[in-house]
């Protein structure tokens, strides 16, 4: 007699953690008017960042994955946001929103804009429920503190941050005591492992990429999700045909073209990301039957655009160096922006 089928789903091999505003959604809240407009938008009025939904769907289609959303949007927007995700064909496993009204009612004004005290315990608590072997890829943006929080999270569970340093960080980030306690409690439940493979930072504000260099090569600033797809292809999360599907959607729905995509490819190469093998896989996929892509542009043109940009660089640049992250030195990245700082990051 054969064994009965498993009742429970298999544990996830990969967890993808996403922020929403400016990461998945094209959101403007740099002024009070923007904030109001965003708050009253209907689901169909919200716009996803080009390629984001396609990327999520392709990652999910590989199976054994888990989509965990932690967003600073208020809980009151849950129904609208869920509806938007459904419209986009996104299926999630966790969806955490911020209790802004609760914070306001309790007079916790720092928590309204603070991110460390909100996101860090949320993702730690989620990790505490995850399988030890599950890898993670995190998606955030450059508007707030995602690079800092995600990197800190990764280094905490990998044992690269000790409790003394963490305490200093939480204190200087003005985290409330109960939030700090949640962080410590959740952290202690997590076995030491090093699951975070990538942290993608969508450059909504077009912050110069060098701004994130202190976080090391794990953090990859991206101008678009085609770039994320290329890196994930190189990392083994996607196949070349899946990357092509994402690119096609970006071309068809968001006005991207062969120039913007090939420039995006070269941009990653110039930052030293090792994409040569991924590029070869992509070429192989492109040379196969691809009616959809062929309809957009003759295949030789597509291949030419990419190969020329590869050849144009001369000697390939070295990969970005691995370094220990000085979180106390980068703490200013984690603090809420001042009103003046809400504008786009100034050129350095």
């Amino acid at each position: 007699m054969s064994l009965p089928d498993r009742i429970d789903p298999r544990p996830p091999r990969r967890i993808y953690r996403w922020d929403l505003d400016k990461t998945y959604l094209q959101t403007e809240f740099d002024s009070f008017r923007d904030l109001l407009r965003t708050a009253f938008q209907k689901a169909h009025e919200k716009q996803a960042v080009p390629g984001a939904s396609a990327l999520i769907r392709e990652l999910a289609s590989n199976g054994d994955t888990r989509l965990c959303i932690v967003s600073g949007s208020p809980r009151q927007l849950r129904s609208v946001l869920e509806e938007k995700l459904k419209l986009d064909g996104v299926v999630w496993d966790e969806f955490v929103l911020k209790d802004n009204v609760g914070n306001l009612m309790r007079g916790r004004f720092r928590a309204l804009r603070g991110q460390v005290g909100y996101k860090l315990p949320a993702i730690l608590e989620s990790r505490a429920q995850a399988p030890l072997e599950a890898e993670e890829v995190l998606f955030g943006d450059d508007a707030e503190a995602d690079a800092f929080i995600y990197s800190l999270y990764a280094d905490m569970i990998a044992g690269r941050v000790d409790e003394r340093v963490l305490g200093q960080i939480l204190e200087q980030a003005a985290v409330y005591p109960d939030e700090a306690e949640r962080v410590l409690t959740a952290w202690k439940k997590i076995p030491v492992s090093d699951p975070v493979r990538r942290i993608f930072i969508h450059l909504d504000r077009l912050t110069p990429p060098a701004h994130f260099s202190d976080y090391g090569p794990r953090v990859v600033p991206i101008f678009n999700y085609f770039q994320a797809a290329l890196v994930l292809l190189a990392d083994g999360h996607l196949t070349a045909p899946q990357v092509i599907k994402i690119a096609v959607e970006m071309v068809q729905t968001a006005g991207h073209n062969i120039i913007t995509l090939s420039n995006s490819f070269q941009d990653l190469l110039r930052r030293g990301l090792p994409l040569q093998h991924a590029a070869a896989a992509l070429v192989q996929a492109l040379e196969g039957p691809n009616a959809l892509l062929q309809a957009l542009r003759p295949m030789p043109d597509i291949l030419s655009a990419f190969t020329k940009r590869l050849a144009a660089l001369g000697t390939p640049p070295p990969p970005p160096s691995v370094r220990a992250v000085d979180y106390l030195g980068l703490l200013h990245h984690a603090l809420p922006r001042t009103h003046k700082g809400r504008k786009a990051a100034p050129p350095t």
Partner: protein
Amino acid sequence: MALKPVTIAFDVMGSDHGPVEVVRGAAQLSLESPHIHTLLVGDRAVIDDALAQIRHNGERISVQHAASFIAMDEKPGEALARKPDASVSVAARLVAEGEADALVSAGNTGACVLACARHFQLLPGVRRAALAAVYPTRIRRGDKEDPFSLILDVGATVEATADDLVTFAVMGAAYARIISRNEQPKVALLSNGTEPTKGPRHVVEAHARLGGLPGMRFIGNVEGVDIPKGTADVVVTDGYVGNVCLKMLEGVHETVVELAQYAHKESLRWRAGLAMLSGGIQRIKDITDWEQYGGAPVLGFDRIFIKAHGRSQARAIANAGKVAAKAAANELGKSIQQGLAR
């Protein structure tokens, strides 16, 4: 109205302020002008280091490595022969091959013109290319209220024939129509008198021919004093006279500035007077600042080349890119050919 997408190749190397300012200008373009893609040609590592520190849109920028460049103090011909991989040569080749629609450089002018001559073709009917210059005047022209007039040639063709002068006039008028949106630019010959019979033989002959050229708003001869007045929108002369004239105009500008500085130091009364005038002086500077124009074209080639001033910083570079994009998008070469065919 959607603008036609164009790609501008920037020779990043060789300008007075170094590659960083050119990169900054191109980065500024990538943020301000969605229809313009920039191709940065130069030392890849230098470009990457600069770009990583600057706010830009990476979707609109690509880089082409070029191992060497022509310095300002090098002899163009010799330097280009010795450095076939110089950034300006590589950039010109890429434009010729269709990888970009126009070239912008703030490097060695002679090397730039020579590189273009080696990689571009002269338009049918054009015997010599013309290096143009823009000069601020007191008259505004076209939809853009452009204060600048165009002077050509200012150095590319030292000895011009009557045919050349007529060609320069057609090219300059076409450029003014596109860049300044001046539908009927006033074109004049630079001479030593306003009478048609004044000037050397080639000028007199050109005068007679321009007067009968269809579609040309030829106003006759102008003298040197007419240039800053803006009597003509396009001033045509040979490269020898044009260069001397341009250098004199630049010298006058510098001398006026020096005199003002001297006055400011020497007398309280003069200082007070200058202070009272400062608002007006600043306004004039804002109107006539060459940096807002960005650069001037070399006309006659089948590709677009905009020569930015060697001292250009980011703002001027970005504006030069916009001028180049506008010329390319509006098919300046075709416009010139149509003018010459009349």
